């Protein structure tokens, strides 16, 4: 109630968010207008030169397309698998608590660790996947999954789906639990079948939650870094390089602070656009 006390209580949070989040973001815009190489003491203003270069940089556009492809495919698979998991967890059966804990395990494991786990499964010489596929006769000779231009990207998607579908499942489960049981009963009395109930009741009422999961997951997928850094390093031939990884390499491997910041800012702006679009979609959904 008292303004001054309230101010003191939120001051630490404001200070941190301002100094460690908002100030650096604005500063990244500022740095992106410079040509900067801190190790050599080079730093001068070049205006929009970095952005002019960025628009014509094929590697930027490839990483942009890689990130978009990765996000779209992995998020749609995660929504599908997450929905299946949520429907399973919503049922009442013996072992539901156990299944819920099991499903949460991939979510809790650090992304870097999960990347190493999948790297070992996909290992060309001693990997479990090659062995199993050869055993059941789907593969005649071992494949180098992570060294292949087509498979490498899909290996990343597989590892990401494994890691993050549980998150989607938990969000959707919360949505399922809010649908009143009477609706189902009424529909059954009217003679509706399982698929009809799903299509007419479950899905429409779940839609806001699906959109929230879509928003969170898309933003998360678009900034993917850890998984790619460990699993493929962006290879082979940059076919799996994402925006965050490209920016990281520019900043800390080739030490182009100005241009690297421009790529990071471009990533930020894209994410901003995506979230604005998703929020508009959510608004329209909740009003109509």
């Amino acid at each position, binding site marked *: 109630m008292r303004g001054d006390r309230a101010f003191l209580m939120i001051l630490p949070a404001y200070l941190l968010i301002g100094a460690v989040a908002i100030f650096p973001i604005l500063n990244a815009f500022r740095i992106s207008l410079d040509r900067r190489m801190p190790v050599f003491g080079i730093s001068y203003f070049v205006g929009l030169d970095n952005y002019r270069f960025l628009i014509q940089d094929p590697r930027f556009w490839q990483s942009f397309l890689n990130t978009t492809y990765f996000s779209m495919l992995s998020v749609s698979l995660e929504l599908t698998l997450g929905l*299946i998991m949520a429907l399973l967890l919503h049922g*009442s*059966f013996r072992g539901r608590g156990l299944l819920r804990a099991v499903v949460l395990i991939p979510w*809790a494991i650090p992304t870097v660790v999960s990347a190493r786990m999948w790297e070992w499964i996909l290992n060309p010489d001693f990997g479990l996947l090659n062995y199993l596929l050869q055993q059941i006769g789907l593969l005649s000779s071992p494949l180098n999954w992570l060294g292949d231009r087509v498979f490498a990207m899909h290996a990343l998607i597989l590892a990401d789906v494994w890691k993050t579908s549980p998150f989607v499942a938990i969000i959707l489960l919360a949505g399922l639990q809010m649908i009143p049981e009477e609706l189902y009963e009424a529909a059954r009395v009217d003679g509706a079948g399982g698929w009809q109930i799903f299509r007419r009741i479950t899905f429409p009422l779940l839609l806001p939650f699906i959109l929230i999961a879509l928003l969170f997951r898309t933003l998360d997928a678009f900034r993917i*870094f850890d998984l790619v850094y460990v699993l493929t390093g962006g290879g082979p031939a940059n076919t799996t390089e994402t925006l965050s990884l490209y920016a*990281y390499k520019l900043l800390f491997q080739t030490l182009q602070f100005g241009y690297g910041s421009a790529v990071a800012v471009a990533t930020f702006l894209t*994410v901003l656009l995506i979230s604005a679009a998703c929020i508009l979609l959510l608004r329209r959904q909740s009003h109509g």
Partner: protein
Amino acid sequence: MGSRTRRVARRPLFWALVTGVATFCLLPFLWQLLTSLKSNSEISTLPPLLPTRPVFDHYLAIFQDRPFGRFILNSVIVASLTTVSCLSIGSLAAFAIAKLQFRGRNLLLFSALSISMFPPIAAVSPLYLLIRAFGWRDTYAGLVVPYTTFALPLAIWILWSVFREIPDELYLAALVDGCTPFQVFVRIFLPLAAPGIGTAAILVFIFAWNEFLYALTFTSTETMRTIPVAIALFPGLHEIPWGEMAAATIVVTTPLILLVFLFQRRIVSGLTAGSVKG
């Protein structure tokens, strides 16, 4: 749950899906566990799938030949300090937003929400310069301060939704009895919100334990590495020593799995706090 779910639960398709999902979730972990118990000669050949005679050499090696104990210590210190500072700062802010009237409280919620959406890469270059200028590279502070900041939205969001449920009358009655708002917060709201605080603590701890980009960028000496950085930069002579790698991944994931089994309800409620109420 009505008759629908019970009917569904009897179908073989249902149990096939449950088994499939459980296998998919557990398989990579179990495969690491098996690998970590195999001798090097058994690792480089398939079959056998199972170790013929379990060996613990790889577990010994990561603690004796590598500073793995130190990495774990680093991660424990960084994640614990982050959790404590994030919850102290976050609970104060969440309480003020939920119960006190002041201008700009929606602005704080909004800015907290929006910084949770931006990609960490966007702030990494200026933060790196800032941390270098402070002389904070290779220090715990260099990780704890950014982690606290970036976990704040999560903590504020969860705790705000908890404090909001506590009736205003309780707050007003305590004020009438002569408490200051801060005393009300400490004596009444914190104890009542204990479960919610536990939830936020688990999620913040896991976030700090798993963070990679900043840990990679802000540390340069091996002894200051956290677990994710150590696992990502796992050195081998020619190829990755997969036995030791497997042992390392098992050592760092086992506590997380225990956490999940002990607190799955809290974790689920924390993850859904924003989406259900917001």
